[in-house]
């Protein structure tokens, strides 16, 4: 167990204490497991609340701050948070303008956020929800829990967060969030499994020289195992998988995301290949973000998310954001 931890039971609480120390500009409620904008509630503004299992850092806590999330609720590792956290977060950040729950499409997240929405509404908070489900590796959604929410979460949180910051009302923030999700698709690849603290050994067995195509962000095996491919071949496969489902007529936002243990050096090299494929397919790229943003603990691998962005979405993407992990403009 090559982990920098004390005991598996306290990893989330330990991380929140460390986050609190590193980010005095946030309010980190370690006991109740909520990360909040220091200045919440912000008068007259819609508040975005998200959350999910831990192990995907910087998602979501690293995206809390002006221009993005008002609050994040971290669950146990790979386990959706509980309704109590979401209700507490909603109550803390609601200025009366309402709250948008950004929910990645997993059974656990969906059920817990649904319960939380009911409870928050009981407390007089206006709640809207957007489901993020961008992962094209999940096919036959009739016979599955549906597409997983992965990289597009970052796009939804950033763009809808900017709309909220501008003072857009809840219905508009919700509509934009929905539009971003509808126009976003992702595909992920694992070069290694990850190790959860609770299990202490890799979640699946991936021999050297093989890779998993179509993985999610919870250490689950993918749809298919193949002999190792080059960065260029992986880019071809991943981008084509996305483009099979999303035929953008205009420029895209591209997220070239690391799963956690893939060095930035490799990620940038992979980005060069992603850009090559997009050029070959005639897809113009408006903005590119490269880095470890939606991770899966210590998994080696990467994912590609494309979002067909209209002018409003691009403007909101470029709008100022001040969070631990995403920060530009002012």
């Amino acid at each position, binding site marked *: 167990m090559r982990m920098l931890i004390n005991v598996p039971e306290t990893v989330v609480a330990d991380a929140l204490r460390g986050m609190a120390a590193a980010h005095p500009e946030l309010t980190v409620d370690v006991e109740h497991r909520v990360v909040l904008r220091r200045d919440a509630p912000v008068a007259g503004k819609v508040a975005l609340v998200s959350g999910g299992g831990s192990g995907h850092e910087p998602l979501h806590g690293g995206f809390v701050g002006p221009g993005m999330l008002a609050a994040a609720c971290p669950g146990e590792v790979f*386990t959706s948070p509980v309704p109590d956290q979401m209700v507490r977060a909603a109550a803390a950040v609601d200025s009366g303008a309402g709250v948008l729950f950004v929910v990645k499409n997993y*059974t656990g997240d969906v*059920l817990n956020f649904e319960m939380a929405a009911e409870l928050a509404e009981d407390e007089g908070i206006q709640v809207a929800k957007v489901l993020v489900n961008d992962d094209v590796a999940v096919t036959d959604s009739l016979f599955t829990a549906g597409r997983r929410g992965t990289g597009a979460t970052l796009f939804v949180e950033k763009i809808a967060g900017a709309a909220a910051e501008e003072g857009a009302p809840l219905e508009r923030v919700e509509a934009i969030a929905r539009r971003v999700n509808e126009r976003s698709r992702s595909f992920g690849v694992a070069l290694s499994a990850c190790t959860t603290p609770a299990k202490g050994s890799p979640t699946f067995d991936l021999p050297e020289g093989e890779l998993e195509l179509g993985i999610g962000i919870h250490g689950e095996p993918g749809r298919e195992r193949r002999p190792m491919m080059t960065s260029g071949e992986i880019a071809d496969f991943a981008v084509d998988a996305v483009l099979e489902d999303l035929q953008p007529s205009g420029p895209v936002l591209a997220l070239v995301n690391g799963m956690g243990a893939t060095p930035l050096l490799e990620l940038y090299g992979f980005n060069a290949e992603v850009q090559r494929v997009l050029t070959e397919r005639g897809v113009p790229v408006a903005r590119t973000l490269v880095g470890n943003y939606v991770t899966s603990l210590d998994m080696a691998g990467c994912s590609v998310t494309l979002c067909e962005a209209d002018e409003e979405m691009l403007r909101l993407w470029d709008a100022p954001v001040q969070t631990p992990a995403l920060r530009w403009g002012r």
Partner: protein
Amino acid sequence: MTDITGLDAAFFRRWLTVAGTAVDREADRLTELDSAIGDADHGANLKRGFAAVRDVLDKEPPETPGAVLVAAGRQLISTVGGASGPLYGTLLRRTGKALGDSATVTREQLAAALTAGVGAVAQLGGAQVGDKTMLDALVPAAEALGESFEAAREAAERGALGTVPLQARKGRASYLGERSIGHQDPGATSSALLVAALAEVAAG
């Protein structure tokens, strides 16, 4: 005690204690199963949840069977998270609600209430028997409980084993498509544990 005439609050508290012990004992196995077709947290999730249930039942033991199950269900919802938290929480809460506030209940009454609870789980999760979920153990168990505790235990166990050849259509395992075949569902397995605990307590 397990009086033939009725099951009291103490019986239900004992059930949840024994269930918690079984969960602790089998946590690694549940996580292992979840690791094959899920995200390797099912054992840790239930361990955390049942520890919290034990705490709350110790602190202020509710006085009716219904209240015990409602309190336990709430606690699971507040501490487990994931898919199993709301689902098991709803199972206990809705079963408890269906039991009303009588001080003792019969096995037949429990069977009817459990059927209501299982129905709530099916509605919440949108799954049905054959989807390779906890329902594959819970549905037959609730039915067989009309007969006897032991029949329920056997039905749940059979249901859990029966998930092995199935392709998952709900929960995380469904992402794997055909690769989910050949593995036993962790939720069905934990359901069988819970029902076995019930039969064990009933057997005295």
